[in-house]
């Protein structure tokens, strides 16, 4: 699904990604875990084609990121990146059109479906200005999934969500992977990490470990180690 080879990216003099090599298999959720500045958002923006690496190669669906394969990618940025004066329905409908859902009838059905899916039916006509941060996150997710993409790139999707909402997001993500959708999710919380099928630990743009959550914990040599302890273990080892 995704093949990343020796990718390096600089923001001016700041090294954001350093010789990163990684593969993401289809139908799995891959968590990008690391502190702020680890390179998680940069990697996601490269995968969606918003940034071009200075070195290395990226293949998504077997080809370099380009405008042609963005219709198969759902992107949820870290900022909610929505139109505040418009309602949830209008925002989702707008992005549905941008993703090429041309038939008015089909688009309307799909928009209503995703609005229900993110549990916002009762507030669907309220301007985003009047919605809470968690609700806006849900609208943002709805915009990313409205065109039913086989690949979802979600940049910190659970930031600012209450525990109940976080659980419902993860339930939905599990349903997506069960239906064959591939997820790449960035996060800096261990709570999110535990839900992923595979994890990548990133620090200052470098990959410090990769594996299943259980495998990474076991690699510390302590059966009862938490993911946080595993992360610290790999940092110290590097």
């Amino acid at each position: 699904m995704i093949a990343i080879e020796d990718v390096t990216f600089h923001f001016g003099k700041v090294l954001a990604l350093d010789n990163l090599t990684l593969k993401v298999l289809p139908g799995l959720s891959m968590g990008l875990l690391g502190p702020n500045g680890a390179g998680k958002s940069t990697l996601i923006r490269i995968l969606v084609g918003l940034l071009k690496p200075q070195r290395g190669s990226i293949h998504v669906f077997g080809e370099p990121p380009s405008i042609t394969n963005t219709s198969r990618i759902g992107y949820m940025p870290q900022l909610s990146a929505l139109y505040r004066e418009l309602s949830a329905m209008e925002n989702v409908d707008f992005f549905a059109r941008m993703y090429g859902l041309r038939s008015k009838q089909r688009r309307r059905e799909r928009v209503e479906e995703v609005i229900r899916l993110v549990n916002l039916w009762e507030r669907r006509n309220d301007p985003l200005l009047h919605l809470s941060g968690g609700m806006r996150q849900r609208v943002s997710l709805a915009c990313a999934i409205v065109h039913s993409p086989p690949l979802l790139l979600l940049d910190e999707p659970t930031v600012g969500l209450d525990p109940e909402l976080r659980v419902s997001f993860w339930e939905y993500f599990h349903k997506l992977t069960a239906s064959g959708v591939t997820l790449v999710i960035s996060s800096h919380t261990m709570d999110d990490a535990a839900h992923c099928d595979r994890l990548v630990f990133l620090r200052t743009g470098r990959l410090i470990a990769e594996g299943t959550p259980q495998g990474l914990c076991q690699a510390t040599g302590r059966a009862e180690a938490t993911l946080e302890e595993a992360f610290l273990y790999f940092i110290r080892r590097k």
Partner: protein
Amino acid sequence: MRQIIRDRRTLALLVVVPVVVMSLVGLSFTEESQILDSVAPALLATFAMFFVFILTGVSFLRERMEGTLERLLATPVGRTDVILGYLLGFLLFAALQATIILLFTIGVLKIHYAGALWEVFVFLMALTIGSVNLGIFVSTYARNEFQVMQFIPLVLAPQIFLSGIFLPVEEMPGYLQGLAKVLPLTHAVEGLREIMLHGKGLGDVITELAVLVVFAVIMLILAATTVRRV
């Protein structure tokens, strides 16, 4: 576009501010209506460019800062299409402002003009399109509203001083004349003067009109190339 329509305060300001400014101009020339007639073409061009630049520059900056532009660039819509979409959206409001300025100047300030009103309007729209593209292009270099505002003295003030509003271009030092002749506002002022003061038609100011069209196209190309996918 719908975003601005829903923001009623912004919409009201788009209409009220040009009216207030033009009223002040009219009041200051109450005793000198002949002078007002002669400076009206220059004022029309200057205020149209000024308001449209601010409207577009700040609105487009908001799209970038709030992440909606980046989100749009992650969809299958091409970069040029995105810019054209913004251009058409902003143009509607910019045209509204330019029309208010024009109608207020003619209908309320009662200036005397010689040429056809529709030709004045067409000429003003050419300037408006260029100003929208200029606003988009310049705002790609700003990171906040304060920086957009700093572009006013840098981009607009030289045009206002060199476009022949205060001193005829021919009376400026040679090197300034050269600079004045490449600025779009100089040609906009010149063209509007020819139509409004001397009753000329669009065919007579085709050179000035062509300069404004070329300026609009160059700004569009620059805007499309500088809208970083970042």
